[in-house]
């Protein structure tokens, strides 16, 4: 004979026992990681002495306000420019062919060497000699390259102007 009943006696676990069990678990974990924890505590102590912890705590508590201020500060033309310029430089670096850059840098290198030689010896060439060296193929090649560079730069400037117009 069993009438329908709804009453359930939930043996709500004894809070003291639950606490004891949790403590025991914690203690075990602490013992297992004693060295690491000790070092961690040293670091925490240092941070606390410096006042870093307090600052961090306040920042955490006010994270939404601070986040809003930070994003407001970041969302300014100056910052936009920094980020954009940074990305442009990176893109530029990415667009250069390594072999070409190497050729250019080799050229620079050798150029510097000869330049420094002259600087050290203090040797001076006469005007005529200078003029005649313009006919040397190496110098001609360098000059041609530079002119082409000027051409290219001009073309890019012109394109930008066209876009604006």
């Amino acid at each position, binding site marked *: *004979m069993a009438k329908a009943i709804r009453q359930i006696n939930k043996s709500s676990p004894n809070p003291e026992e639950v606490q004891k069990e949790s403590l025991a678990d914690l203690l075990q974990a602490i013992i297992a990681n004693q060295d690491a924890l000790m070092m961690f505590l040293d670091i925490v102590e240092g941070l606390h002495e410096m006042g870093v912890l307090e600052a961090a705590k306040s920042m955490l508590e006010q994270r939404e306000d601070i986040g809003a201020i930070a994003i407001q500060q970041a969302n300014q033309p100056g910052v936009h420019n920094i*980020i954009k310029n940074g990305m442009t430089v990176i*893109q530029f670096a990415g667009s250069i062919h390594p072999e070409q850059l190497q050729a250019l840098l080799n050229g620079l290198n050798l150029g510097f060497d000869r330049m420094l030689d002259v600087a050290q010896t203090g040797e001076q060439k006469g005007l005529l000699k200078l003029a005649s060296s313009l006919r040397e193929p190496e110098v001609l090649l360098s000059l041609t390259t530079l002119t082409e560079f000027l051409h290219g730069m001009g073309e890019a400037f012109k394109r930008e102007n066209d876009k604006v117009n």
Partner: protein
Amino acid sequence: MNNGTFSIHINGKEFPAKEGQTILDIAKSQDYMIPSICYHPNLGSIQTCDTCLVKVNGEMVRACTQKAEPEMVVDSQSRIVKDAQYEAMSRILKNHELYCTVCDNNNGNCVVHNTAEYLEIEHQKYEFKPKPYPPDNSHPFYRYEPDQCILCGRCVEACQDLQVNETLTIDWNRENPRVIWDNDVPIDQSSCVSCGHCVTVCPCNALMEKTMLGEAGFLTAIPPRILEPMIDMTKEVEPGYKEIFAISEVEAAMRKSRIKRTKTVCTYCGVGCSFEVWTKDRKILKIEPHEDAPVNGISTCVKGKFGWDFVNSEERLTKPLIRKGEEFVEATWDEALELIATKLKEIKGEHGADSIGYIASSKCSNEENYIFQKFARSIMGTNNIDNCSRYCQSPATTGLMRTVGIGGDSGTIRDIEKSELIIVIGANPAESHPVLATRIKRAHKLHGQKIIVADIRKHELAERANLHIHPKPSTDLVWLSTVTKYMIEQGWEDKGFLHSRVNDVEKYKASLEKFTLEYAEETTGLSKAEIIQVAEMIHEAKSVCILWAMGITQHLGGSDGSTAISNLLLVTGNYGREGTGAYPLRGHNNVQGACDFGTMPAWYPGYEPVQDKDVRERYEKAWGVSLPEKPGMNNHQMVEGIQEGKIKAMYLFGEDMAIVDSNSNHVQDAFEKLAFFVVQDIFFSKTAQFADVVLPAAPSLEKDGTFTNTERRIQRFHKVFEPLGDSKPDWLIFQELANRLGANWNYKDPGEIMAEAASLAPIFAGVNYERLEGWNSLVWPVKKDGKDTPLLYEERFYFPDGKARLYPVEWTPPFRAGEEYDLHLNNGRLLEHFHEGNMTYRSEGLTYKVPSPWLDVSAELAQERGLEDGSLVRLTSPYGQVKVRVMVTDRVKGNEIYLTMNSSEDYEAVNRLTSSYHDKITHTPNYKEMGVKMDVLEEKGEPPLPKVNHRFGNRIPQLSVKVEDKWSRLDFTPIPELLEGEQYGESDQAN
């Protein structure tokens, strides 16, 4: 060209193609990327996004609509095609702000994100402008954010033509088009049935499950006042979208490690929808259906999509409970199982093995049902085992076993889709089998399928039907037999089929003599013209499926009614071909499987009789015990057995018998008499209140296993969470108990249980877990080599000579309660709640939409009795009474009333009213045959159905999204036209 197969060339590569396939179909079938956004495999082409533009013979066409032809040459990669696709994508991004990394839809499957990335979109060509509409957050389960909506129309297509609820449209005539609900009302007040199709198919974050918002991403919970400037800043400094996509991809990849995706099978009806559950710890983020799911594709109903909160309910049972005096006290598993083992042993010893009854669960897995019947038979030594199919579908099983040999659906949902004529009798699929109903509604709307509904209620399918007949309650056998007789008289029977494949034809024809049109007219109240029209429609259709449910089975003549249906199908040759057959719609997720795996008093797994010596010996050998020969008691007999003192103890799991059995007063009275009663459930049910020991079980999301749906399809589900608290999977509980009673079972997982069942029951010979990986499924019978049988009876019926049998049946007049009980009480399920609601009421959203049961009364009756929406009435039958509030509706007529069954409170539960009369063959109660009288208690009151229920909505039916209206807007230029213009005007670009 060979059998409609040929090949085409896309970008110089050869692709095999079939007739009727579009270019996009072909590319997709070979995993070849042609971009597309609005196209969805379950929806077809919608033609709004234009990202799939390709060139065929020099002309720009949409790959999603262009049918392939032999030797067609397709170009999807030339400059002009790329420009066209880029232009299409740019137009989409005008309507959609890309802030992927802080978007909850950035989970690797965002179609807009992935397409934009594929098309290498670098910059916003057209400036994004917010639309002048606020987000719609009114609905409890999902939101619409117009600003993010790309107007692709997938949601509209899904609502109009797949779910066919016809709520969503896009208003193309506004300056800023948007998706609207009904006549532009808040979502919550619309006709939306919350099925979730629109949310599932949305290719971006415009429509999203509310459970995802602020939860899915690592950064998506950022408060708006920080988030908005962040988005602005990102847009300001972005070098191009490529870098942004890279970051969002990294973030999406990170999400994979914390969002778990697990395939499961829905437990809310017999249709067997499968989908992924996305979870973060114990939180359910969303249900994600998948186009490859064998039954439902991306379809779901409100319960499957949104109704899973019960899993984490505070009310879940988490510890075993033992009755001590007037209360239950929490106990350990050890204490509980030891007590059960001792008591069962004691009672068995004293009163014999047959003094204990075992009730299995049609909500639990095949493996759990298998192991439970093994427990009852091999450990406890009795065949007293049954499941709740006794309450619903046993008569249908009997009708089919008599005539065609297998008690299950003849085919699958594909056959229902393809059939020319669907006849639905005594079933309300749009509410009780919603996803199955969508396939009928779609075939009817798009493909000319005809529908006949025979029902005393004008439910949704009845409204849509080509013919709705309303016979007098419980007279279906008469009109069915009359239609059969009339067709034979007209010479419309399938003579060849009858001759070669059916026995007892002449005997059956003779039995029809009394079913004249006149007799039918008088008995059923249908006109001769209606009956003839039914016959004509069957005659004209090349294929017919008949679907039925409780409106046929829950009657005194339930088995005979089901038999009459099968007879009609046999006479007209509607078996064994695509698009034909008998479909008893199973109500619970695993009614089919519970029966298939042997929790029945007379059958071993796979429908082999317990009396059959050979069969029994097979099990005896495998289990190493001797087994009882006599069939055991069924549910009904057990309850009577308690009253008679034969049954002393019961063990019941996953079934609220005290509520769902008819004449619940009587059943509850019996439970009080039990000497020992074990109830195992996920909640403290009404039945549990009578128990001596209550065991906490784990629901499907907390275990592995398989379910078998109404199609006979076996599908695997996987563990999503660990069992809550101390609860355990049912199979594990049975194993632990069995071992205390001397068994030595050591199943490590349900796969081993299935392997054992498959080795013993021939119809499951080829079933194993490997064959059910992922979205794979098997429709039994399954041969050893894994070949399954989606369509039955193609070659032979399941009798020794392979021939079907026509089975003469007589009409049984329904139970009459008496003159004074002047109203006919009908009852059943609702869309929003499963059964009596012990799971669905744990969902806040579902309870908000439907807070309580109610009584549908007709306008005539309301006028006669002075009732209005909200009136409180008392219904009294010879067996009990209930109090319930009224809704006045045209869904019911005259003196027929309908009580919804979503309550587990005695004072409003329909089974306080029903009787213990039953179908004579199967003992299925006649739930649908009760007369009641009505007293009006309060004329005025709060209507039981809130205004935010879909039943008050106003549908806007149309075909698809009306893309023509988009194309005829003044600001729309077709992309090919635009590009041609640009080609001629190249000088413009250069200045």
